[in-house]
């Protein structure tokens, strides 16, 4: 019905929309009006662009599985990523780093066999072909820029999260606070996707810089962080509501982990679908590639 609405009088130069016979159609082709010209030109220009963006989109859709590097400033995220990449890809020594302000992803790979021997192989070894590719995605650790990392956790391409911290743990509270936010974000993702995927969300806490003499062992760090989070989750649950909760009155605050008030343990996160692992290592000693392989392999 509606398609017949535009009457020929209204736009005399345009061909009647529906029932034009061939000759009038031809006539209108050779009698282009300004609007027709403009439309044509626009179409001509837009088509390649559309095609381009479509292709571009579909490429983006097939992004490699991604591992997110998070953690406080100076933990060694960028160093870890570049070291990982340079060992696998280019063979060049990794660059030096400074405080990051923007995210960056690098393409890395590990042997499909996740063999610990892979690093002794030369780049020309044909078995390198059977490598699994993935992206390591570095994020800035500065307090003001953490949302860049936290907002990514829910992305479906994220297979695992690696929380990099400095084993000297000079700022336990700050570190635990960021870790808490990461765990909470992962818990939300896990509970949201609960039905659709039975695969747990995986977090590796990478205690970096174990080469430094003030470094604490990974076990000790785990204990300290768990203690801190125990306290933090109590105080957070009692904290002042934020402005947005206003309407519904006293909305329940989120609670990290399952159930009770007792001491928090990373293991308890499994019940809410988040698997946590703690490992010590050092970019300086180049042992992350090996140590991360199992984790990454397990997530792929």
């Amino acid at each position, binding site marked *: 019905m509606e398609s017949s609405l535009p009457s020929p009088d209204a736009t005399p130069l345009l061909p009647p929309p529906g029932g034009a016979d061939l000759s009038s159609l031809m006539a209108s082709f050779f009698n282009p009006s300004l609007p027709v010209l403009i439309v044509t030109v626009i179409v001509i220009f837009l088509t390649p662009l559309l095609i381009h*963006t479509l292709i571009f989109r579909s490429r983006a859709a097939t992004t490699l599985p991604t591992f997110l590097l998070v953690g406080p400033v100076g933990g060694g995220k960028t160093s870890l*990523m570049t070291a990982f990449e340079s060992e696998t890809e280019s063979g060049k020594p990794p*660059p030096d*780093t*400074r405080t990051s302000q923007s995210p960056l992803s690098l393409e890395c790979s590990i042997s499909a066999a996740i063999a610990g021997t892979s690093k002794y192989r030369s780049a020309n070894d044909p078995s390198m072909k059977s490598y699994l590719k993935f992206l390591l995605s570095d994020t*800035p650790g500065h307090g003001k820029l953490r*949302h860049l990392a936290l907002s990514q956790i829910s992305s479906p391409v994220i297979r695992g999260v690696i929380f990099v911290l400095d084993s000297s743990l000079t700022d336990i509270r700050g570190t635990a606070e960021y870790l808490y936010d990461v765990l909470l974000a992962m818990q939300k993702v896990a509970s949201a996707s609960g039905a659709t995927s039975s695969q747990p969300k995986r977090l590796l806490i990478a205690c970096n810089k174990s080469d430094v003499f003030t470094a604490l062992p990974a076990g000790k760090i785990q204990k300290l962080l768990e203690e801190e989070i125990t306290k933090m989750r109590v*105080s957070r649950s009692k904290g002042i509501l*934020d402005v947005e909760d206003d309407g519904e009155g006293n909305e329940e605050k989120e609670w990290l982990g399952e159930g009770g008030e007792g001491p928090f343990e990373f293991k308890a996160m499994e019940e809410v679908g988040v698997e946590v692992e703690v490992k010590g290592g050092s970019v300086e000693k180049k042992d992350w590639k090996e140590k991360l392989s199992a984790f990454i392999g397990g997530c792929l």
Partner: protein
Amino acid sequence: MLVKFLIITTSGILLWSKKYAPVNPSVVNSFISDVLIEERVQPGTDGKYYKKDSYMLKWTTANDFGLIFIAVYQSLLQLTWIDELLDTVKKLFTTLYGEQLKKPHTATIECHFDDYFNSRISELERKAGGPRPIISAPVIEQAKDDGKWDAPPPPPIPGILKAPPRPGSPAIANSALMRPGTPESRSKSPAPASHLLAGTRRPARGRRGGNSAHASSGEEKSPARNSKKGGKKLRKWDADGNADEEDGAVLDYSAPGVSTDEDTDHGSRKMDYIEQKEWGTKTSKGEFVLKDLDMEVNQILKEAEEKDRASNTASSGYGAFGFFRNIVGGKTLTKADLEKAMTAMQEHLSKKNVAREAAVQVTESVEKSLIGQKTGSFQSIEATVKAAVEASLRKILTPTNSLDLLREIQTKRSGSSKRPYVISIVGVNGVGKSTNLSKICFFLLQNKFKVLIAACDTFRSGAVEQLRVHARNLKELSEREGGVVELYEKGYGKDAANIAKDAVAFGEAEGFDVVLIDTAGRRHNDQRLMSSLEKFAKFAEPDKILMVGEALVGTDSVQQARNFNAAFGNARTLDGFIISKCDTVGDMIGTLISMVFATGIPVVFLGTGQNYQDLRTLNIAWAVKLLMS
């Protein structure tokens, strides 16, 4: 004099650097945090430079490539050309390596920038009246010798070096040595120095007069040389032990060939580069290259300038195509393009009650960050600007450290000291200091803390009585749950600082967990009253000084926040804002931005009503949404 020049990416990777003396990486890190992330302006610098330790930093950014160029130097003197250096190095670097930088998923690039940089430096020095580099016979000779003396790197240790013909490279390399007799040239032109170390790739150009350099990277170098091939790995990690000073070294590796100090391993690679890459057919004969390089540099700079000019004029002249680009995206933004959107944005922010000054500065910094960037596909300029402003507001409001008051009080109370946690509240008259203090008190009582309220407004009649009423109400409200609250009062007219001090002592003796100090309201431009705050802070030693600001206040907010922030002396600033009466302004919550922007101090609480429980923490997403709506 120049100490170090760095080129880093926004993602935190050092692409190239030139070092004349070791600089602790923390200097650059704090620069990035303070200036680039937190956008703080050091007082007195006007945002033009940054001071840290004994260093000055100047910088420029190339937004389209996500690059930051930083010059670290020791004093303002002599360095009239530093801005030009930054600017031209930026042009050179982006022209030479822009392609590589645009590739996705790349961390490092291969760049051999040393010689370009040195050429630039000597040119600028020459213009500034320094000694002119002379190409002299000895140089050539030296080049010949080099092979012998400096055995390891087969190819080129070019002729650079200067004077001490006996390239005794070890000696030179090792000590930041300066040859006597050339002090003047040395101080003015640090650049050449590093040729000693570096120069392998191409003969050094730069200045070769007799000044020899103080090659600061010497220390790391020499071991490397000794270990020769195979030593590379070893060395690198060795060196890192003292990470601070070594960054130069590490860096170099990132882009082999770049660097100031290369070692033998890279020799052959470098050679390749020379032949294949930028140099085309040029040979590595030092003497001639100097000229070629300078010419090339000038050529690049000239082209870059022309392009600049062209794009400036073109942006207006593009007509239909420009319009089209605006719809489709992919347009490189210039100041002219942004002007309209920026003014609109300023208007918008002003309507949200953001103080004019803050609105202007926010949009200016956004504008700076956008110039040179390309709009995304199908993204109009307006949309791009909007997204950038949104990100900027979010960054402003996000605190660097999160504030968990309960946790902080607990930590303090579980420590060894018996001193209570002290919070004092300041602000201009009538903004709701006492009301918000009572709200905080209520919150603390709910969490079973023992709270002492100190009435230190000894100025305005009725102030103490008002607090007494609050204290009584709170007592009633919390008695059932076992909260303990008391009022510490000493009447009117006495010195507030002393009362505060006594109150804290009293609180400590009586085992209170928290002391909340109410202070007299004062106009932020009342010199006399404001200056008494310094003594107050010294006497009461508050763990937190919170300033209450009214959401209703307009233009004044910036100055209020600044003056209060500065009132506590050099050693102390505010710790947070409480923005009161947020329920009365709807979405016009611009005061939040104005106050935080003016000081970099975060908003801790929002007052949202008359009742004791009407205290909220800030939700940043909520605030940004309201501001942009």
